[in-house]
């Protein structure tokens, strides 16, 4: 296998008395799309900022492109594309100007930048807005521009911190489509997210983070196979929840009572559902679905990803 682009060993980040990243280990390989999945405050941004060389490592080791972020920051950043959690575009400048300035920061020659700008505007579906002031763009457009800006230097590694948080579903799907295309072109991506569907769609491999630690690692499929039975029966029960739970425990290897419903994990949902009704358990509604990363997270931490 090729040499990893990023290697972290016992990587730790502390802010005064808060440990944001607690001794994590991971490797990111060329061409893969690697995810950090975890709830707010898990330490995703802190980890990514260290990789982006804009946050000093507290302890442990980190190498990016085989270089040391503390000593070779300039060189590393020249090969990175960074999409921060919060857009920091220049709102007073136009779409094209934002791209142009970034190209200059990367010390690219003007003709090359001009060429890249056209290509990226097309990629981000912003060609019609090239001379609009950024202030006038929608949230989804700004996000796409931030991604285009991160690609201006043809980076070897693109870091995307919660790329679709705060966007409406339509804008999200367009963005996923663009990121998927990027992946198809062979780009190496690091994506953090607290959306399990985003992680499932975009990541080849991911780590689940919770409370500054990595609690599991693998492909979305492998994680689901390992930590969750194939299917889930979601039961909404208004009356007699406690009695129902007592009966359900006997029916399935694992159940997960939540505030307003019970999740019953099973390898055969239809059979389980039939047994539920045979037992005379009264439900307000019943839904059968496949297990997701959400279930993996619940299993690992006992909590939901988004509360």
């Amino acid at each position, binding site marked *: 296998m090729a040499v990893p682009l990023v290697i972290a060993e016992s990587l730790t980040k502390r*802010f005064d008395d808060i440990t944001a990243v607690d001794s994590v280990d991971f490797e990111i390989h060329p061409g893969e799309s690697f995810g950090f999945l975890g709830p707010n405050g898990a330490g995703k941004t802190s980890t990514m900022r260290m990789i*982006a060389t*804009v*946050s*000093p490592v507290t302890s442990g080791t980190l190498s990016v492109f085989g270089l040391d972020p503390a000593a070779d*920051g*300039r*060189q590393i*950043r*020249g090969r*990175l594309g*960074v999409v*921060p959690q*919060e857009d*920091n*575009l*220049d*709102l*007073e*400048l136009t779409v094209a*100007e934002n791209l*142009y*300035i*970034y190209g*200059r*920061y*990367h*010390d690219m020659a003007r003709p090359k930048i001009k060429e890249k700008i056209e290509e990226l505007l097309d990629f981000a579906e912003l060609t019609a807005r090239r001379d609009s002031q950024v202030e006038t763009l929608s949230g989804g457009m700004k996000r796409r521009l931030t991604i285009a800006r991160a690609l201006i*230097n043809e980076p070897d590694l693109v870091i995307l911190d919660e790329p679709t948080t705060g966007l409406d579903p339509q804008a999200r799907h367009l963005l996923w489509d663009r990121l998927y295309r990027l992946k198809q072109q062979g780009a190496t991506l690091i994506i953090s997210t607290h959306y399990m569907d985003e992680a499932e769609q975009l990541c080849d491999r991911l780590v689940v983070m919770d409370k500054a630690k990595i609690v599991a690692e693998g492909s979305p499929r492998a994680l689901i196979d390992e930590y969750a039975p194939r299917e889930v029966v979601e039961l909404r029960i208004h009356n007699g929840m406690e009695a129902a739970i007592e009966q359900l425990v006997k029916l399935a290897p694992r159940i997960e009572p939540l505030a307003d419903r019970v999740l019953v994990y099973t390898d055969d949902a239809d059979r389980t559902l039939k047994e539920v009704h045979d037992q005379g358990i009264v439900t307000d509604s019943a839904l059968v679905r496949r297990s997701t990363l959400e279930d993996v997270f619940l299993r690992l931490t006992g909590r939901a990803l988004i509360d």
Partner: protein
Amino acid sequence: MAVAAPIRVLEAQYRTYRRTWRGSVISTFLQPVLFLTAIGVGLGTLVDDGAGTSTLPIAYLAFLATGILPATAMQTGSSDGAWPVMAGFKWRKDYYATIATPITVRDLILGRFGFAAIRLTFVLTIYTIIMALFDAVPLWPGVLGIPPAVLTGLAFTALVTAYTCTLENEIGLANLFRFGIVPLFLFSGTFFPVSQLPDWLEPLAPLTPLYHGVELVRKLVLSDLEAPLVSSTSMWVHLAYLVVVLVIGTALAVRFLDRKLLV
């Protein structure tokens, strides 16, 4: 690459400025014009006609104009190190975007200061032309005042940038101007010679960068002026003071911005 990096920042500053300069241009030029009209021409007539008691061998307007030049530089330079810097790390957060590229914090500071120097030169040149139009100081030797005034402004840009990078919010900026910049503007020899200050205040004047800027401009532009209207200190001392402030201010600005951004 490393040498060119601050130039890239300067270039970006220029592009942003090209879109936003209109907002500041009126106030930048209106203020010296107002001072020259109201105080210089109005009050100056009284001072100069002081029924034989006048102590100035030159027109008050010339004395005032050569003080307002570095004082304006101080204000422009200080403003440049204040709100735009706080915007950079707190409001617009454009500094985070910049340092995500090969640009370092040091490049960012040097590029900003480079652009500040160009902008100061532009503003002070216009101001020197206005001075000439008011018959305060002829263009020659008036232009000799521009380089020391730019240096004064830049020294303040550096000091104020460093200070801003230690702040969490803009209250500290308002206080800086209220309790720092405005008193300096009034008491550093801009409107009247420092020798007129109360005895306990007079020794404090040479501690402030503006004092040295004002002295340097006057000694260069109004070469006939003598003590006590100007000090007898060598021009090299004034120059050295301003350069030292600029160098220390720049080093502190890099260090404090680094601490702010790279957490």
